[in-house]
């Protein structure tokens, strides 16, 4: 029984890392640019397709495919920010929602045009396939790899934002963009970079899920809803909050399946509703 519980915890942690990889970029973009990017799920989907094409069409290995996805979607993110998002910072938030929702529709159809509407199952990367016995039960090696990847991404983001001058400038601009500009920070360029990094994280997240699930148009929509739940629980715009929110939702879903299978899909939403009632700014958000 104890082993069972522990094993389910491991499943939950893996699920949490999948969520975290997507939620990180979403909360980063909102925290700095104050743009709620509905198209984040589409960027995630594009990451998956980019990785798929890199391995199927260009016969690249797993690692180059990851790089292609992260960098490719990151560059796309920069273009989107410069061409479309930048002109509407001054407008009401409804315009941002409309714009990013338009991206969702456009990218979904674009993906169908380029890759076709069918589900595609890519190959498992060498060395990460198969399973090992953990706590007396077989567990996919790839899921352990995802656990590691999530922690690495979290550590990397923490290093970048807390310890580098670039990260300091980002935090300053997130707090007061006008004042940051008056201190010499090139805020428009910084915003493009942050949007690119956020998009790149989505792309990386999509590419990382490729070996474990089928790739299809619309795969972003399901995921982005979960990511929003995670981000809202943790506090919109708070990276650390998104990490904790992902852990919470991941574990809840895993144990929910075990104990209350009827409710397991609703659990995350119930928690989100509870958080919104008790702490409207999220667990780590700052009110006001």
């Amino acid at each position, binding site marked *: 029984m104890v082993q069972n519980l522990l094993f389910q915890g491991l499943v939950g942690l893996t699920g949490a890392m999948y969520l975290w990889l997507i939620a990180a970029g979403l909360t980063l973009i909102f925290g700095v640019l104050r743009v709620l990017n509905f198209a984040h799920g589409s960027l995630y989907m594009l990451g998956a397709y980019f990785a798929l094409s890199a391995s199927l069409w260009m016969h690249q290995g797993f690692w180059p495919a990851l790089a292609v996805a992260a960098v490719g979607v990151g560059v796309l993110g920069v273009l989107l920010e410069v061409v479309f998002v930048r002109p509407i910072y001054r407008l009401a938030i409804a315009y941002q929602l409309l714009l990013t929702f338009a991206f969702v529709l456009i990218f979904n159809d674009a993906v169908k045009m380029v890759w076709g509407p069918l589900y595609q199952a890519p190959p498992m990367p060498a060395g990460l396939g198969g399973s090992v016995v953990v706590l007396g039960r077989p567990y996919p090696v790839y899921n352990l790899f995802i656990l590691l990847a999530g922690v690495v991404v979290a550590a990397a983001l923490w290093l970048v934002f807390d310890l580098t001058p670039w990260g300091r400038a980002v935090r300053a601009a997130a707090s007061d963009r006008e004042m940051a500009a008056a*201190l*010499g920070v090139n805020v428009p360029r910084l915003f493009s970079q942050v949007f690119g990094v956020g998009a790149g994280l989505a792309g990386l997240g999509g590419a990382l899920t490729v070996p474990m699930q089928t790739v299809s148009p619309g795969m972003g929509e399901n995921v982005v809803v979960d990511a929003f739940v995670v981000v809202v629980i943790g506090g919109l715009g708070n990276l650390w909050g998104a990490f904790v929110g992902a852990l919470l939702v991941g574990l809840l879903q895993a144990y929910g399946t075990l104990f209350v299978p009827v409710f397991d899909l609703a659990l995350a939403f119930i928690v989100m509703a509870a958080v919104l009632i008790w702490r409207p700014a999220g667990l780590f958000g700052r009110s006001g």
Partner: protein
Amino acid sequence: MSAGATLSAGAGKEPLLAAHNLTKAFGELRAVSDVSLSFFPGELVCVIGPNGAGKTTLVNLLSGRLAPDAGRIVFAGGDITRLAPHDRVRLGLGRSFQITSIFPGLSVAENLAIPVLARMGRAAAPARRAWKVPGVAESVRKYLDEWQLADYGPLPAASLSHGSQRLLEIAVAMAGEPRLLILDEPTSGLSLAEKPEVLVHLRRLAARAHATMVLVEHDMDIVFSLASRIVVMHQGMVLADGAPEVIRDDGRVREVYLGAALEAAPSQRRERAPGPAQALLTVRGLEAGYGLGRVVQGVSLTVHRAEVVALLGRNGAGKTTTLKSIMGLVRPSAGEVELAGRRLTGLAPHRVAAAGIGYAPEERRIFAELTVRDNLAVADQLARRNHQRSRPRLWPIDQVYALFPDLARLAHLRGDQLSGGQQKMLAIGRALMGNPEVLLLDEASEGLAPPVVRMLGEAVARIRAQGVSILMAEQNAAFAGTAADRLYILEKGRVQFEASSAELGASAEILHRYLAVAGGEARASGATP
């Protein structure tokens, strides 16, 4: 002495609000340390003390914005230590803020309607229907008239000048008809001309039997003319508590607070370096504004190398907008800004900063979630780039720490844990970190206790001694007079007068005409009468 005075003030009465052994620390810093105070019905208590004494923290504890680490707060017989701010407001404990906090997007009348509705228990009434709730329109009109805001009723609150916004904020706090009202520096940001007006309102309010007020204030004229009791705070503790006459004669209070102001402030002005002055910053025919309003209507001015120039004027005269236009934060509709012959007009703020202009805004605008050190370090990249362009780096971080030793001591605290005065220092230090040739200081002396104002004067002199020019917007004519070499007086967005500070000091008529100050009264804003 404090015990006796307190007893006589509240003889035979129950305190309305009582704090018992309140303590609040931010990291290592004990902002409020074991403070016990009682406030009795009908009293007007002024809380004074040097910057960083813990006044704002105390107010935040009383109003529920911060939770104490230890201690209890009792209001009207009930323990409110753990009550949320809005619940305290409902019980009748209201407050205003040191930083203007009204709803900028709502109209002046709507801002006033919010507390009126809240009092009726209709806080959630939709804005559009608010006016149909019986009595709301009448109440709001009453407050508009009372505060002489009737002309502004339908305008967005954001369109009011800083001074009028402060008035509105106090009016909003009053409209809640609290049993006890805490006002945190209600006159900060007001010109000497506007202060008496607020004073009249406060006096009338104090005269009402049911109003009890706690006032945090720096202006000693206001404190001594209003207070029925004065509480002096120093380093997080209550240093003295008693009637104004008692406080005035208290040796320790004179020493840490009033005494410093009573000494004649030495003139920090030095003779300008001989030789032909070199124009560094030139502004010609600058026009700027927001929406349809033309706040700045053709300002021309010059700042020479290593010169301190002050822009004097009342609220709404266009001082802040002039500085913001120079910085590129407001896009001027006409005119030119040049730095050492290079045109800056229309450049983005980060390019203006790179060209060599630093900016310390009136509202401080500290990055709340960054530490003091990180706040300073934001401008580090800028200084490095400027340094590469062979401008010697005058203000590395240790020089800034030497200028403001407080910042070194507080380096690891978060920006929002500093007191208002410390944030002013940080804003100036942060601007210096970018290694500017010209430093723009917006209302640097506003809200500072007299000893700190004097320290600021010394800092200005030291900054100038390094060859940095300063353009400061000031309402405090006395501070500008001692700190600046030359002054421009702004009124209605135009330069009305230009003089050396010596000439201006001698001309009581000019001071009176443009600043509504009699020459004889021009004094450090904290000097005792």
